[in-house]
């Protein structure tokens, strides 16, 4: 009980931009805004437990690593996708060229035949 009494809290009110972020996040993650805020409050509860003075800096580095890992996965998928599209486009180029040569050849044959009589 004495610990609870000692712990004091500051009420932090979200700015307009932060509210926008919260609502977008809520939409994307399909979570109620209050649920997200509870998660953030839990983060702060854990955060005060760290003795390390540079902990926030370390946490941000960790978040950046996670973000880049996600971006790498996304970019790798993009690369697979663009390779597929490139292969398809190469195949189409060959087909377009073949179609053209075939129709020109047919045209020339018919032209010759029509001239013969």
């Amino acid at each position, binding site marked *: 009980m004495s610990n609870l009494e000692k712990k004091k809290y500051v009420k932090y009110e979200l700015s307009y931009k932060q509210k926008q972020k919260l609502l977008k996040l809520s939409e994307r993650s399909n979570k109620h805004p209050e649920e997200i805020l509870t998660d953030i409050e839990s983060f702060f509860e854990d955060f005060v437990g760290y003795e390390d003075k540079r902990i926030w800096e370390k946490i941000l*580095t960790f978040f950046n690593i996670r973000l880049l890992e996600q971006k790498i996965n996304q970019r790798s998928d993009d*690369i697979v996708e663009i390779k597929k599209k490139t292969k398809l486009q190469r195949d189409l180029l060959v087909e377009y060229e073949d179609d053209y040569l075939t129709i020109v050849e047919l045209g020339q044959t018919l032209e010759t035949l029509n001239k013969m009589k």
Partner: protein
Amino acid sequence: MYLRKKYRILIPDTTIDKVSDMEDMVDQLFDYYIYIQDLAEADLSDSERLNNDLDGISAEYNELCQDYGKLMQEYGVLNFHGSELFTRNTITGLKLGLLMNKLERAKGMWGDQLTLDYDSARKIIQHFADRYLLKKEIED
């Protein structure tokens, strides 16, 4: 509706002493919200190792972006070339009616005397019309 509502969070007052810019910290927590749960298993003991990891992964990401840029460029060139050929074939396709007439005339004049496969020739013309004039998707 939700934007008009006031949203507050309770932050332990000792946090304020540890962090110089609380607004920025809350901003970042929204930006990185999906990774907060990963902190439970994170090893945050060694700054140097974390920074090295970040450098390594940044280099890997940059390399991938460069590869992707080159592939996009290659695709762009092929796509441009493909559009040119498609347009050329579409213009050629405008004469297909004339070609069909020639085919019918040839058949009328020569009939079975020729080894020309009239049905195949019609299919060639139809395929060309479907693809370049009617822009139908061609399946193999």
